[in-house]
């Protein structure tokens, strides 16, 4: 029994959900809106599960064509859903994690829209979220690079919309354009990546004559032999696309800023699903990459360097979500390095487990932030009672007078007692991310490391191992800072645990984070075998005990160091980070993201602004406006109209002619009027003369 005919419904269900909420949302309560959106995503998950079930009986790729799309000349593309083991893996992750996050978001946005005093925006959030699921499903199920690109752009749009969800304020709710600037930054950075993707697609169509996956991959070996430069160019341009969407060096700068979006967005789009699209793209294009080892190495190197680079930045961050954002970039680096090395199964494995534990971490961070917000409001309420009724109005708005950052870890501390459920969930996520046995992250990360080690990518292996060390360190630092010690802010002391609608999805994710490794235990290799049906280049890797021991050992050492620095002697309120005392300027570098943003400003953006100024002031204003329009066009026109046409043609020609006629008529008339002297006898004389003339004519003719 197969269910392949259901394939289009992975897109239709979210679209139906978003249309329902879009059209009828005004009459729905928050619960109904949330339920519709979650159901839409949940049904997509059910369909995905049915597709996986169908594939277990029929492991070959199934293409389900919905209709003709583009048929121009030799470009023959249909709107086809591709159901194979790779795409269904992504579908399961997207809709599964997506559904949990939808449910979580019902609770999260309920409070978020109240803290930010805009209840109407609740519905909009779920419309966007459903739209994202639909776009992501198109991305993973597309049967051609162009259809993939449609989804690719769709998720980019949703990312933009959701980062700028609170577009008229900054992350602390103050009026500012910070959030919308973050959205623009994401859009622009992705646009650069999309440019690479597009160029790659054009080259592909030029070289292969098709954009359909199978047709491209079939020709790949032949073209690689006859025209290796072309494939290298295609793979490297695709890599630009990957660095944009998956936030790799050099285009990673947008992802930390993307934390301006609500936390469920950070979890769903900017950790679990959308940013992994690049990894999916490389895996999907495996047939191209395996033909160009040099490109593979570059991809792996970009991933590994990003992994280490972002991990060091994460160490210096104070914002709980920023740490996770850099951690995400770092982990994406792991995945990209994995798929770059040709360890496609390992990369995808890490993608899946990372989706579990990073979504868990982000959502738990969201829960912490909400708890801090609650504590802060609670605090305002206490102050309100203390101050009495006289200053009622002032203290009511007093909650917003003090700038309080609920996401700043320096305001937290001791949350273990006030938010115990979140603490345990966060701990599970942390252990999974740090790669501690037997959590999911251990298995997937280890598989990538083992690949790097056994395939002889020594540099990449060490880069990733050091990155893993930092990963464990910054996660340890976060745990100690957030949950242990004493509250450094009254809000942390009054923080409250989140409701069930928030914690239950977290528990599911936590369970997945613990057990996710079972997907691909070494020796069993469920996921590798599953993916091998689609990606034929998967080499089974033996479990490397020494690699596992080194990485786990380093992780434990890192956690120990973090305990030594942050756990042994907890940070006091207002105290400087102990690592900053030790490392000084190096820590400042980590804290300030190694000045990459400043570098980009100095190298690209300021130059861009200069060029813009040049274009605006010199080209547009001075040349185009002042010279061309004013002098050339307006001047010529004025000359023509004033001098040539007015003075010569009009005044001297037409005017003179008609004035002449008038003058002549006047002169003639004033001459003739002398005959009209009123004396009858002079008229009679003319009559007489006339008669004489006529008679004379008649007589003498």
């Amino acid at each position, binding site marked *: 029994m197969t269910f392949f005919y259901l394939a289009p419904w992975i897109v239709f269900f979210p679209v139906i959900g978003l249309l329902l909420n879009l059209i009828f949302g005004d009459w729905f309560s928050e619960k109904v809106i949330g339920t519709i959106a979650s159901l839409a995503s949940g049904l997509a998950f059910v369909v995905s599960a049915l597709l996986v079930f169908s594939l277990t009986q029929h492991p070959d790729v199934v293409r389900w064509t919905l209709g003709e799309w583009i048929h121009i000349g030799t470009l023959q593309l249909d709107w086809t859903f591709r159901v194979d083991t790779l795409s269904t893996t992504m579908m399961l992750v997207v809709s599964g994690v997506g559904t949990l996050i939808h449910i979580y978001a019902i609770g999260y946005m309920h409070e978020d829209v109240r803290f930010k005093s805009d209840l109407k925006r609740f519905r909009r959030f779920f419309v966007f979220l459903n739209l994202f699921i639909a776009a992501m499903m198109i991305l993973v199920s597309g049967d051609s690079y162009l259809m993939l690109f449609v989804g690719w752009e769709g998720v980019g749009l949703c990312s933009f919309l959701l980062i700028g969800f609170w577009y008229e304020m900054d992350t602390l709710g103050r009026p500012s354009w910070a959030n919308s600037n973050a959205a623009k930054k994401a859009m622009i950075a992705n646009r650069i990546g999309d440019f690479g993707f597009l160029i790659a697609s054009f080259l592909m169509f030029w070289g292969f004559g098709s954009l359909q996956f199978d047709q491209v991959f079939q020709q790949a070996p032949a073209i690689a032999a006859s025209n290796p430069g072309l494939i290298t160019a295609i793979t490297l341009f695709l890599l630009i696309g990957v660095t944009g969407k998956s936030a790799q060096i050099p285009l990673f700068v947008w992802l930390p800023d993307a934390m301006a979006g609500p936390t469920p967005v950070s979890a769903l789009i900017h950790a679990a699903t959308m940013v992994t699209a690049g990894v999916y793209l490389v895996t999907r294009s495996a047939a191209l990459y395996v033909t160009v080892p040099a490109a593979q190495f570059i991809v792996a190197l970009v991933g590994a360097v990003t992994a280490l680079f972002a991990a060091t930045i994460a160490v210096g961050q104070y914002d709980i979500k920023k740490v996770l954002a850099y951690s995400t970039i770092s982990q994406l680096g792991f995945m990209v390095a994995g798929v770059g090395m040709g360890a496609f199964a390992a990369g995808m494995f890490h993608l899946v487990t990372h989706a579990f534990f990073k979504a868990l971490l982000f959502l738990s961070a969201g829960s912490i932030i909400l708890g801090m917000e609650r504590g802060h409001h609670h605090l305002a309420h206490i102050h309100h009672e203390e101050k009495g009724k006289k200053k009622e109005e002032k203290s009511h708005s007093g909650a917003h007078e003090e700038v309080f950052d609920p996401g700043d870890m320096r305001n937290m501390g001791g949350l273990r007692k006030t938010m115990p459920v979140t603490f345990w969930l966060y701990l599970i996520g942390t252990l999974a991310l740090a790669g501690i046995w037997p959590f999911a992250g251990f298995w997937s990360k280890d598989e990538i490391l083992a690949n790097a080690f056994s395939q002889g990518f020594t540099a990449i292996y060490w880069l990733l191992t050091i990155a893993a060390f930092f990963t464990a360190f910054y996660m340890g630092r976060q745990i100690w800072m957030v949950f242990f010690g004493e509250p450094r802010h009254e809000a942390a002391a009054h923080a409250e645990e989140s409701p069930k609608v928030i914690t239950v999805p977290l528990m599911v994710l936590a369970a997945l984070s613990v057990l996710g490794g079972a997907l691909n235990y070494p020796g069993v290799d469920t996921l590798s075998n599953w993916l091998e049906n689609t990606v034929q280049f998967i080499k089974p890797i033996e479990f490397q005990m020494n690699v596992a021991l080194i990485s786990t050992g380093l992780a434990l050492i890192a956690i120990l160091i973090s305990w030594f620095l942050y756990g042994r002697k907890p940070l006091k309120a207002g105290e400087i980070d102990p690592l900053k005392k030790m490392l000084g300027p190096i820590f400042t570098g980590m804290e300030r993201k190694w000045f990459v943003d400043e570098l980009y400003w100095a190298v690209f953006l300021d130059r861009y602004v200069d060029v813009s100024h040049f274009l605006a002031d010199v080209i547009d204003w001075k040349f185009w406006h002042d010279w061309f329009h004013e002098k050339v066009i307006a001047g010529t026109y004025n000359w023509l109209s004033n001098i040539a046409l007015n003075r010569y043609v009009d005044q001297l020609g037409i005017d003179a002619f008609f004035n002449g006629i008038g003058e002549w008529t006047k002169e003639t008339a004033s001459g003739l009027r002398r005959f009209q002297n*009123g004396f009858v*006898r002079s008229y009679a004389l003319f009559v007489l003369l006339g008669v004489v003339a006529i008679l004379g004519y008649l007589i003498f003719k």
Partner: protein
Amino acid sequence: MVPVTDYVALSAILFTIGALGVLIRRNPLIIFMSIELMLNAANLAIVAFTRVRIVLEGQIFVFFVMTVAAAEVAVGLALIVAIFRTKHSINIDDMNNLKG
């Protein structure tokens, strides 16, 4: 018998005298008389020609002309009286109201 050319010549002389009188004289009464002169010059020519052609229509026509001339004089005199009443003058030089 007097030849017809003499009649016609006389008629022409009379007509010319009449026309010049109309053009030159200032007195409306004289002008009327000059007009009569012209009419009668025409009458004379008509009568002379009818004598030669031996037809009656011209003779009858002369009577019509005389009648019209009489009526015209009556109307003309009435006009002169009316003009005199308003202008207290019948000098033809004062009557240039048609001047453009």
